[in-house]
């Protein structure tokens, strides 16, 4: 038998493959079912957002960055707004911080819901998607309520929020928070002890803590391998140090561990959201009192000359940001989302760069799947929760 000629086979996966979360192309070299090498090709979704941002005024960049990681839009805009506020030296009122925390946690749950749905769908638990998307719909309704826009609300602005919370906000969020714990139990009932799901995910796609750090993966992927790094605990922003929550950790580092970490994260996010909602008064301040950045209230624009001038200055020329640079990381659903901005002291950014967790995850993908089986590639991509918009920007 030893004289039988064997050769490896090259298989092209993507860019239109349904399990590649957008348009990711993988060139797989296979020996039977075993993967010899993987070459990822990205860039199909590159839209030059960072270049475009340099042409826009500071406040016009918010809708742009929200379209990078389109499943965690408000995590992008929070990172950007915090960076610009750092350069401007602005401190937010407590109520604004609490609303931002609430929005960020609801965004994390929404992103994890899409993840649990698509990840389940890809490895055979098709009905997961319907359970998850049904709950996400409620979160999109909340987005619609606060901003009139479901996917990219642009509600977080430099210097605060776009406007005050609408009537009925508390009731709608409270309804979701009351309903959701039972739904997480339902998800877990469908997957956590599901024999087929566990066979597909246990012992597959190991990423240890050291491996994750070497490849720049910080976030749920590293936490499933034993790291306890969470930006919210290590470098608190927006008042996270005042909230009571735990950082879920697993030590196995396989696909199943990443699943358990993310499900536990949803429960912790709920805890944070509950605390935040209790602190937020139905009406109150929704921006800092810096007139350089925050437009004056509409009733003043119509009655006072100075307010009218300020209103027009902000919307025509924009505001200037002191020269310098800032990088503020936030804990996005996929890991550390950071925004590096450079200002030359004018009304437009000189450079905007997002640290994209999906970019790092796809870079590390070959080191995770090599030597494994081709069927596991789909499980591993799903478990890293990559979003190609985030990766290609």
């Amino acid at each position, binding site marked *: 038998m030893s004289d039988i000629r064997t050769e490896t086979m090259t298989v092209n996966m993507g860019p239109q493959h349904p399990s590649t979360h957008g348009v990711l192309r993988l060139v797989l070299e296979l020996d039977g079912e075993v993967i010899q090498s993987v070459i990822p090709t990205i860039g199909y979704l590159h839209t030059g957002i960072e270049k475009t941002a340099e042409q826009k005024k500071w406040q016009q960049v918010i809708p742009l960055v929200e379209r990078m990681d389109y499943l965690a839009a408000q995590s992008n805009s929070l990172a950007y707004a915090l960076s610009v506020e750092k*350069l401007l030296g602005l401190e937010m009122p407590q109520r604004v911080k609490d609303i931002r925390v609430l929005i960020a946690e609801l965004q994390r749950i929404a992103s994890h819901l899409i993840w649990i749905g698509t990840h389940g769908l890809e490895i055979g638990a098709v009905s997961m998607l319907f359970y998850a998307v049904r709950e996400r719909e409620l979160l999109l309704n909340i987005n619609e309520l606060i901003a009139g826009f479901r996917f990219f609300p642009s509600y977080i602005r430099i210097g605060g929020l776009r406007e005050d919370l609408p009537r009925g906000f508390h009731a709608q969020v409270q309804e979701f928070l009351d309903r959701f714990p039972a739904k997480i139990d339902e998800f877990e009932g469908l997957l956590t002890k599901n024999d087929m799901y566990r066979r597909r995910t246990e012992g597959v796609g190991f990423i240890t803590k050291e491996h994750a750090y070497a490849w720049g993966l910080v976030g749920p992927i590293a936490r499933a391998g034993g790291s306890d790094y969470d930006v919210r605990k290590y470098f608190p922003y927006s008042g996270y140090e005042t909230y009571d929550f735990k950082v879920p950790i697993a030590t196995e580092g396989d696909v199943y561990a990443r699943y358990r970490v993310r499900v536990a994260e949803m429960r912790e996010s709920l805890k944070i959201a509950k605390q935040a909602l209790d602190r937020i008064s139905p009406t109150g301040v929704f921006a800092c009192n810096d007139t350089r950045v925050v437009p004056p209230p509409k009733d003043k624009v119509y009655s006072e000359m100075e307010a009218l001038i300020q209103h027009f200055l902000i919307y025509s020329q924009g505001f200037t940001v002191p020269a310098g*640079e800032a990088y503020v990381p936030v804990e996005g659903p996929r890991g550390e989302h950071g925004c590096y901005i450079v200002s030359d002291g004018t009304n*437009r950014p000189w450079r905007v*760069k997002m640290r994209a967790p999906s970019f790092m995850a796809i870079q590390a993908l070959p080191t995770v799947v090599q030597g494994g089986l081709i069927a596991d590639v789909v499980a591993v991509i799903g478990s890293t929760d990559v979003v190609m918009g985030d990766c290609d920007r």
Partner: protein
Amino acid sequence: MDAQAIIDSLSPLVPGASFEAAPSVDFATVYVPAEQVVATCQALRDSLGFEVLAEVTCADYLPRAPRYEVVYHLLSVSKRLRLRLKVRVAADGTLATVQGVYPSAGWLEREVWDMFGIVFDGHNDLRRLLMPEDWEGHPQRKDYPVQIQKAAQTYAPLEVSQEQFQANLVRDRVTRTH
């Protein structure tokens, strides 16, 4: 740990390097001479506990000379520290890759080359990453137009004459007010 403290603990580990503290609003920022980048990263990872290279990026400061600044964002989980390294690179300058120290630098440096055209010596795979393989030029440079108005061609490499290029530049110019 401020920038000066990091320089003080770094200087004995990297002989002959002249570090320079830079002003910053968020965390310590240190200018590193271009030829000492690899040795500095090695020392930071092995002796000072910076396990993670979170980000490599670049900013084009045209018309200033040296034109580029390559920026490395390091993270030490064990010490709860962040550090920004900055390297000044001339318009035709090159830089050594830090892939050997931090594997995560691979794609990050590739993106910097793709977008800014800074060559990383010793990089194992310096190809186009985000732009198509036959793309000409480096789009994030400040002298690159925002939009090239040209009929789409799917098979031939993109060719833009010098006149078209300049016309696009003039058309895209935005006014920056101080």
